[in-house]
C-alpha cells in the first residue's frame, strides 16, 4: 500500500514538473496562446466546456464500442467459417490482410459517400479497422487445439457440435482476448480518425475527432488540448476495460492472466 502511494506521488511529481516546464517555455519564448496555451488556460477550458467535452467523449466512446462489438461478433463468425477447412482459409485469408493494410483515411471518403456523415459512418470505420485482429486471433485459437484433445473427443464419439462448443470455442477464448486487446485500441483510433472525415451531421456537435477538427479551425487551442487529453483518457480506458474483462474471464485457469498476487 505504501509502495503504491509512493508510485502515485512520483507520477504526480513528474506531472507537476512537466506543467512547470510547459509554463516556463511559454514565458521564456513568449509563445502566443493560440499556438501553445498555458496549462491553466487548458484547465479553465476543460472546466468551462466540461459538458461539451463529456458529450464528445461519450459520442466517440459509443462509436468505438459499437465498432468493437460489431467486429467481435463478425470476427468470431468469420473465424468459425475459417476454422472449417484449410481450403476456405487459403481462399479468404488474403482478404483479411487487405482489411488490415488498407489505410482507413483512404476509404473514409467512400464510406462518407455511401453511409453519409455521422455516427453510423464513424462506427463503420471503427468496425473495419478493428476487425482483422479479431479474425486472425480467433481463427488461430480455433485451429490450434492439441491433437490429443481432438482424439480424446473422438474416442467419446463427440459430435461436431460438441467438438466446437466444448473444445474449440473455449480453447480460443484467450486468443479472442488478445485480439480484443489489440482491436480496442484500434477501434478508438478508428473512431477518432473517422470523425475527422465523417464527423457529424450537425455543425458544432460531434465526437472527439470532430471537436478537435472544429476547435482547431476556430483557433480554440486551449480546448483542443483538453480534447486531445480526453482522447488519451478514452484510449487508456478502453484498453484497461478490456484487460480487466480478460483477467475476469481467464484468471482462474489461464496462465497468461494470472493476478499479480495469486502466487
Amino acid at each position, binding site marked *: 500500500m505504501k509502495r503504491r502511494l509512493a508510485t502515485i506521488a512520483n507520477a504526480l511529481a513528474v506531472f507537476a514538473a512537466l506543467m512547470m516546464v510547459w509554463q516556463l517555455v511559454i514565458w521564456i519564448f513568449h509563445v502566443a496562446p493560440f499556438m501553445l496555451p498555458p496549462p491553466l488556460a487548458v484547465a479553465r477550458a476543460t472546466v468551462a466546456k466540461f459538458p461539451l467535452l463529456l458529450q464528445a467523449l461519450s459520442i466517440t466512446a459509443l462509436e468505438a464500442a459499437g465498432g468493437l462489438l460489431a467486429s467481435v461478433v463478425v470476427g468470431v463468425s468469420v473465424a468459425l467459417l475459417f476454422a472449417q477447412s484449410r481450403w476456405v482459409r487459403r481462399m479468404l485469408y488474403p482478404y483479411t490482410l487487405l482489411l488490415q493494410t488498407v489505410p482507413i483515411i483512404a476509404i473514409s471518403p467512400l464510406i462518407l459517400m455511401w453511409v453519409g456523415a455521422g455516427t453510423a459512418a464513424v462506427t463503420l470505420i471503427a468496425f473495419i479497422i478493428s476487425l482483422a485482429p479479431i479474425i486472425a486471433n480467433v481463427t488461430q485459437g480455433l485451429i490450434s487445439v492439441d491433437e490429443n484433445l481432438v482424439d*480424446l473427443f*473422438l474416442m467419446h464419439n463427440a459430435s461436431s457440435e460438441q467438438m466446437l462448443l466444448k*473444445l474449440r470455442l473455449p480453447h480460443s477464448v484467450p486468443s479472442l482476448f488478445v485480439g480484443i486487446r489489440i482491436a480496442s485500441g484500434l477501434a478508438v483510433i478508428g473512431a477518432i480518425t473517422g470523425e475527422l472525415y465523417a464527423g457529424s451531421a450537425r455543425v458544432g456537435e460531434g465526437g472527439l475527432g470532430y471537436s478537435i477538427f472544429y476547435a482547431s479551425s476556430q483557433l480554440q487551442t486551449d480546448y483542443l488540448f483538453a480534447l486531445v487529453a480526453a482522447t488519451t483518457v478514452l484510449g487508456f480506458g478502453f484498453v484497461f476495460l478490456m484487460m480487466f474483462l480478460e483477467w475476469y474471464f481467464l484468471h482462474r*485457469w*489461464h496462465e497468461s492472466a494470472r493476478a499479480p498476487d495469486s502466487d
Partner: protein
Amino acid sequence: MSANESALMVELTGVAKKFPNGRTVLDPLAIEIRKGEFVTLIGPSGCGKSTLLKLISGLTPPSQGTIRVDGLTPSNAREMISFVFQDATLLPWRTVLQNVCLGLELERVSRDRQRKRAGSLLTLVGLENVAASYPRELSGGMKMRVSIARALATNPRLLLMDEPFAALDEMTRDRLNEELLRFREEQKWTAVFVTHSVSEAVFLSTRIIVLAPNPGRIHAEFPVDLPIPRTATLRTSPEFDLLAGKVSRSLREAIAQ
C-alpha cells in the same frame, strides 16, 4: 460368436500400417489379447507402439489386416475403450471434477450420474479435496491421476495407455504404477500399455511384447508370472530382477538389429 472368441478383448490379424508418404510403420503382425490381461508394448522409438494403440482405438485405420475389439470393429467398440495420453490432456478451463465428467458428458449421461461417478473416481485416485481446482494448480502426478480418473469414469473394459507416466519423476511414477494396479482391482479392465521403461513394464504387466523398429514388428514376448497383488517390495526381489534383465537384453537385441 463362439465362446472361444469372446474370451479375446483385442485381436489383430495381419495388421500393417504405412504412412501416406509410403514409409512402413508396422510390418504385418498378429496380436491376441485375452480379457483381463495387462499387456505392455515396449520398444525403441520408431517401433510403432503408439501407432498400435491408435489402431486398436480406431483413431487410425490399418493399411491392411483386421482389428477386432471384443468382436467388434474398433470404431464400434469405442464405448468400451478409454485412452490415456502421454500428457494429461486436461481441459485447462474446466475444474478437476468437470474434467473427470468430460467423457460421461460427451456420452450424454445425466448430470447427476456424472457428478456421482466422477466424485467416486476422484476418491479412488485420492483427489476428492481438489475437485474444484483448475489443472494449472496441480502437480504433474496429480494431473495424470485426474487423466486416469477421467478415463475410468466411462467404465471402460479396455484401457489404452500411451506412456502415461513418461514425463513424471521416478518416485511419482513408481507410486502411480502401484496405484494403477490398485484401481484395477476394483474394475477388471483389460490394459494395453506403452512404455520405454523396463521396470514399469515388468511391474505392471501380465505379458510384455518387445517390438523392434524400422519397420515395427514383434521381436519377443515375455509372460510375467510374478505374484498378484504386486507391492513395492516386488521391485527389489530376485525374480523381478531376473525378468527385467531378460527384457532389457531382448530390448537391446531389438535395437541392434
